[in-house]
């Protein structure tokens, strides 16, 4: 599914670390890796050098791992330049890092990462780096909602990331608690919850099995963002792979936004994945 992977790098450390994830995905997929740095107008010399050095390190690492790699350096407005590269090279997926100051903005609106994820005509892995010690994830937590689109691609991305790092996948679903008006919240055991497992999640698990990925599943009813954070912290997961939010502004304001919540409070590195390939 992925034959060309692009990692956007800049002068910030988090972009270099997120590019390392791209290397391992490229390795697992047998894909060509593109490393690009788009220098914005007015960038300082030292920032430029840092980005160049980061690109070099990523390049060397990828070459050492036997991955076909290409570096692209350009100038201009990053989103439109990356967009051009994606279209010109036929990129399948872009890795880009979010920054802490992006997260501080509500719905990280107007940020480069957000704009990029909306505008590029391919899949996007938006990476939030919070822990530079967890370099090679052994436990990947994959929270899934009941109805998911592009199941096949999501499963493929997860499976290949797990394959790249030889990790175990923990599929996690946090359904709304089961309630009745007069009886309040009804406690269901994990076994009872399993019987209510949504079809899309079952399909996702089937794909993981097909790819031969070691996995476990868990259901924990409750507030989604909080449940994921607790699960990740209590089980010491190294990486979370989560779908991009599909809630609109009004729903996010009224009901909250688990993705945004997680971007702020994640205890480990996080990939917000936006699939770009329709299920066939």
């Amino acid at each position: 599914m992925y034959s060309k992977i692009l990692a956007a790098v800049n002068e910030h450390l988090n972009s270099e670390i997120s590019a390392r994830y791209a290397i391992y995905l490229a390795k697992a997929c047998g894909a060509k890796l593109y490393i690009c740095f788009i220098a914005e107008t007015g960038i300082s010399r030292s920032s430029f050098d840092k980005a160049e050095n980061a690109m070099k390190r990523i390049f060397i690492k990828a070459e050492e791992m036997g991955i076909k790699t290409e570096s692209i350096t350009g100038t201009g407005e990053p989103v439109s330049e990356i967009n051009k590269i994606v279209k010109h090279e036929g990129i399948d997926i872009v890795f880009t890092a979010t920054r802490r100051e992006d997260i501080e903005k509500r719905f990280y609106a107007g940020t480069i990462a957000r704009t990029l994820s909306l505008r590029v005509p391919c899949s996007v892995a938006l990476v939030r780096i919070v822990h530079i010690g967890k370099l090679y994830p052994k436990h990947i937590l994959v929270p899934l909602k009941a109805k998911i689109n592009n199941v096949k691609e999501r499963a493929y991305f997860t499976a290949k990331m797990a394959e790249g790092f030889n990790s175990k996948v923990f599929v996690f679903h946090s359904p709304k608690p089961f309630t009745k008006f007069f009886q309040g919240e009804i406690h269901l055991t994990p076994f009872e919850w399993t019987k209510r497992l949504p079809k899309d999640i079952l399909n996702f698990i089937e794909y993981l099995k097909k790819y031969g990925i070691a996995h476990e599943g868990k259901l924990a009813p409750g507030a989604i963002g909080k449940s994921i954070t607790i699960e990740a912290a209590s089980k010491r997961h190294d990486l979370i792979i989560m779908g991009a939010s599909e809630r609109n502004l009004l729903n996010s304001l009224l009901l909250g936004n688990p993705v945004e919540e997680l971007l702020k409070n994640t205890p480990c590195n996080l990939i917000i994945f936006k699939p770009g390939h329709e299920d066939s």
Partner: protein
Amino acid sequence: MKIHSLTKEEVFQTLVTSENGLTEEEAKKRFTEFGPNEIEELGKTPLFIKFIKQFTHFLAILLWIGACLAILSESLHPGEGMLTLGLAITGVIFINAIFTFIQEYRAEKAVEKLKLLLPFHVKVVREGKVKEIPAREVVPGDLILLSEGDKVPADSRLIETKFLMVNNAPLTGESESVPLDTSPYTGDLIQSKNILFAGTTVVSGSGKGIVFATGMRTEFGRIAQLTGTVSSGLSPLQKEIIKITRVIAVLATATGAIFFLIGHFIGRTFWENFLFAIGIIVANVPEGLLPTVTLSLAMGSQRMAKRKALIKTLTSVETLGAVSVICTDKTGTLTQNKMSVKRVISLDESKKIENQPSIFTVALLCNNTKEIEGDLKGDPTEIALYKAAIDSIGHLDSERVKEFPFDFDRKRMSTINNLYGKNFILTKGAPESILSVCSHFLINSEITSLDTSIRERVSLFNHSLMDEGLRVLAFAFKEIKSSEEIIVAEDAEKDMVFLGLIGLEDPPRPEVPEAIKKCREAGIRIIMITGDGSRTALAIANEIGLVKGEPVIIEGNEFLKMSDDELRDILSKEEVIFSRMTPKYKLRVVNILKEEGERVAVTGDGVNDAPALKRADIGIAMGISGTDVAKEAADMILLDDNFATIVNAIEEGRTVYENIRKFISYIFSSNIPEIVPYLAYVLFRIPLPLTIMQILAVDLGTDMLPALALGAEKPSSGIMKTPPRSPKERLLTFPLLIRAYLFLGPIEATAGLFGFFYVLNLYGWQWGQMLESSNIIYLQATTACLTAIIVTQVANVFACRSFKESIFSLGIFSNRLIFIGLTFEILLQFFIVYHPLGNKIFSTYPISLNIWLILLPFAFLLFFAEEMRKLIYRKVLK
């Protein structure tokens, strides 16, 4: 590959830093990217939000609507007293909100206490220079310098050490210091010796480390994050109260609406129907229930405090009664944590060994116990060895040259001592660990080769001691040349001479076997979680009666390999013991038990116990040995660290639940005489027999103290002989409602209407004649109705003291608080009936003694009818 498995060079490369540290510019960038190195309180709801929520639940919204409509009516029909009613209903909302808030209030200070374990300043190398900066400014990639006494500010990978030892107690719960070095390690991060963890302390030596995680992303931050975000959810009582209020709200609204329509079809005016609808809602709502529940829980917590269980959240009082599983530590909780030497096994039978260390020499000198002003300070095991050695061989003159402290990998400690003019390595530790470094043993004062048969013999001795429930340590020594300099423990601890074994006993607390028996009878499972070995744990469990059959014993390393489903299966077994466990695993055990619907109590004392304490239905911290963090995270603090106190508290919790049902029955009985007058008013075109303010006088006034007195009833005899109540069991059961609404309530309603019509007839009232609300005859009639309810409620207090036992077998005077409550009730009624202020507020008028007397037979009727019902229940139905 993980950070602890990399070489020094790889660490620099991976974290993009160098031996000169970061540049200030890069540090600034990373600070912007990774944020300050501090512990945050995530997901903490401000107190005022918690308070506001008490005004927005279903019942409160219903009452708000009622109050708003009443106040609106005042503007449409001034002078009908609707403003007073609106304000009174608003008052009810506030009273309920305040009491529920008090019930649920809990000071969340666990994370604050965690913050105190981090340093304020730290030395870093930036741009090749050593600088002291605020600890919050440390960023990933910083090179930090630490020396003795320093607190570690962030998780760091060591690149240089000089005899560095740290105390990891906040993370591991183990008080022993751990020596650290820089060699790459392939195991688990938490066990890695090249990692410094935030919140730990450097005990000795110094070191340099590269920071790889800061703030909430450190292991310490992980504890803070879990402590701040996990919760046990609503308590069983809170869930039940939500259900009750929903039932009441729907019942009240439906009744109000139905009779509003009936009134409309039989030709009542809108105004009359409106007044009726509000009245029926107020009459249906037991306004005094929440304040009474709160006060009753507060009284319960006072009683628990007297039994050495300090309750931090009022709802926990009742939750204790619902506990179905207790996960308990062993040392200090089931046992006394007072170690003493019970058995000494030495292969050498010679009494005196010249110029050679004996087993007691090692016990005395390879020991960090300190004598301070006649008191022995140190680890309980070492103190016990020290005492036994002093008793056996007295003090010895010896200089300690060096120490290789205990650590969990080696499972032993060693010292180099100068004794008898020679240098000796003295070692003590776990038998299997000591045997692995011994090549000889001492027999008949001679050092002989240690062959397989002797090893097997030692192993058998070891097992027999553990089967007696003893903690077993082995001892060994080796003579070395005075000039020989030994740097690392591994060089010292080889080719040693085995001396023998000492079995130490930590006796069980004397009250524990009885408490465990009580738990068995009460259907409560006990799961022991201990750091001790399986054999020792099993022996103690047998001794205290914790296991009767063949328990499932899971060791820490097996536990780690298990999937959740496998662990779920294990935890469903009747008798389970977890051995060689560390506190951090408790959260997983608690989570799985809770997922299976168990109501879990868990004990803990360390910093890393905090998440499990927060997650459990009842987190129990140790008052004597517990850390501040554990105490803040817990719902209950055991002032004496004693398991038996938990069982006492559970008994108290079950009693509280039983008593809440008693006063609910009492309070709900008076709803019927409050509702029936309204129905009669609509259906039979009579003056309203009871005003809304008079209903509030009963619900929030006269009923309160007698109901509270019911909350102080003693436990019934079989309370700890029945299984924990099922989560499906309702507080408001159908039989309870039938008894209150269709048996006791109707008697009270009859009394009320009798009193009302008796007064009207006395003054020649004719059927259909409507009276002004200020008419004295009408005021006296409603006063008689109110008085009838009070008189019958006096009898009802006695009736509600037990659901099946006769008051005569309980003893009329066995609960003195009942009489205090009744005195208050009667005095308040006197005030309402005879004081001008009471008359004004409640629209009453003084009545004669004669009227009180004619109402008394109804009280006797209720009392004896209930006694008869109980008799039938006991003799016929059961």
